[in-house]
């Protein structure tokens, strides 16, 4: 009654990548990722600056790190370059630079922001879902909205003024 085709289509491949990444986030201890385990990594530092948050979930950080490295063999080098950019740019300059569609460092920063706020690393066929409900965009509005597919509340609770 419940057969789902197992053909190895592009769709299936994307789904499996997503599941693998989630499994990494949910099941593997932080220390399972050596690059992320030794002190303050480039990704941790870059993520703090880009999100403005000091309380980033270490398991989420490890899952993102794992996903980005899996997608892009040159990730570590590009990340180090981005960290250097962030170390020297003030907020106004950084905002302008991140809006530049052609800037490589900005593109990586936008990818990392997408990872944190939408739970997705990479794009197109390479895109991987590393998180959903824990993505920061949901945290920003958590007092009013639920991540889609999770119940808002009892029937009709949405009729009340939100705040």
């Amino acid at each position, binding site marked *: *009654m*419940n*057969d*789902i*085709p197992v*053909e190895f*289509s592009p*769709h*299936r491949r*994307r*789904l499996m990548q*997503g*599941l693998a990444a*989630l499994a990494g986030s949910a099941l593997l201890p932080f220390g399972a990722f050596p690059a992320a385990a030794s002190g303050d990594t480039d990704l941790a530092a870059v993520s703090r*600056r*880009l*999100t*403005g948050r000091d309380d980033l979930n270490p398991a989420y950080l490890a899952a993102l790190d794992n996903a980005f490295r899996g997608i892009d063999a040159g990730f570590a080098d590009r990340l180090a370059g981005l960290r250097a950019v962030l170390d020297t740019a003030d907020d106004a300059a*950084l*905002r*302008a*630079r*991140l*809006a*530049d*569609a052609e800037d490589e460092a*900005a593109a990586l*920063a*936008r990818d990392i*922001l*997408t990872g944190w*706020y*939408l739970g997705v*690393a*990479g794009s197109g066929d390479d*895109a*991987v*879902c590393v998180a*959903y409900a824990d993505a920061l*965009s949901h945290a*920003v*509005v958590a007092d*009013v*909205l*639920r991540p*889609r*597919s*999770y*119940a*808002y*509340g*009892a*029937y*009709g*609770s*949405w*009729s*009340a*003024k*939100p705040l």
Partner: protein
Amino acid sequence: MADTLSADVVVVGSGICGSLAARKLAREGASVLMLEAGPRIRRDDIVRAFRTSPRKGDLIAPYPYSSLAPHPDYHPEDNGYLLQQGPYPYKPEYLRVVGGTTWHWAAQAWRYLPNDFRIRSLYGVGRDWPISYDDLEPYYHEAEVLMGVSGPVNNGSPRAKPFPMEPVAPSYLEQRLMTRLAPEFEVITNTTARNSRAYDGRPACCGNNNCMPICPIDAQYHGGLAADAAEAAGVTLIPQAVAYKLEHDESGRITAVNYYDWDKVSHRVTAETFILAANAIEIPRLLFLSASDRFPDGLANSSGTLGRNLMDHPSSSITFNVDEDVWPGRGPQSPASIQKLRDGDFRSEHAPFRIDFSNSSRVTSITEDLIKAGYFGAALERELRARTAREISVKNVLEQLPDPDNRVMLADEKDALGLPKPLFSYSFDDYVHRGMAASRTAFERIAELMGGTDIRHSPEGKYSNNQHITGTLSMGADPADSVTDAVGRAHDHENLYMASTGVMPTVATCNSTLTGVALALRSADAILGRV
């Protein structure tokens, strides 16, 4: 070695129309066999696939795909199943799974307006139906009871009996729209196959805001439930069975349907009556594929209109920020609309339309926009919160007239089973463009009344699609200009019926599913000798 199966009735396609027609016939004692090209799926698997998908905005992404029963998929790039001849690309989405495409829909379950059946007589455009609203009214109610439809009575479509349920409770956003747009625009709660109370073993909506691509709790009706109901009534369902050819005898009666299983083994099914219930693209495709010496242009095509008069609902939209916090995303996704521009003498000049308010959470799209614009850190979060509270989107659902040059055909290119893919010719006429211009005026007035700022129109002349695929099997009184008769039976084949939105001769201004189901239930009555 091919085997041969047999039943009183064979239904090709297990979507909401085919399944509910099959159920009705089985409950009257017929042996019914239903073929479905795609696989069985389970709701919980789709919910999990949605939550782990990197493309949350892609309604197709959570559903399984097979090249053996392909469906169109445009993300991250077009999979090339549907081919285009132009001038305008027609890119509908649909699913080939047990239960069909209503696994993902907003459950809008509107009746047509009585005048929608007579636009040629009343307004000199399009074509009249061979039946009237009154002919269909009892079947609308039958469908509404099966599907659990709720709604308000002031929706323009008269009814002999009450809705099975009260309208779904309005969100705060919907209440603000109702208050601030009145009296110029009356905003009503949509009629939807969504539970406002526990109904038929399914719970009331609890606001998961995920009607598309999947309601996690079955608070809205869908074709998977219809297929379950058909099987419970005794219908034999064969999934992963891709129908590819109908056979006929000397008199033109259909004698058998042949299908491939997913190992490409061919099977043959004989029956007294055949119902084609794939969709308005896959049914013409099967009929073209079944061309014979006697019917060289395809079955059911002596009129030459098979696959022609393809219609959908093109949409334009406006997005703006309201001048107060309204927080879309609380409650169901498509809660309310404006009816006043669905009908009137203006229909002789430009397309009518319904105006539809979205209540889908905008968190993802706004986040994407802000990241692209260079926002980060505290400013990103501050702006995300502000815009999520105030940004709303409004679209139209606009009537496209039947045009014989808008059509589905067979391409030279073939799918993995060696069957020619669908090919489209498609365009929009000035009737549509003038309707879009009228929509724009209404949109701007709505934005003004809501104190709208940062107003963004969808690109001029580029319309999104609504997957309300109609017209390619049009019913009509004259066999010279229609494929099916007033009960959905092929003019050319006395035991071949179509249970599909494809039989609808006009697309009107509302979602096509409820009308498609009502017509399918009426066709079942015709098979039973009751019409």
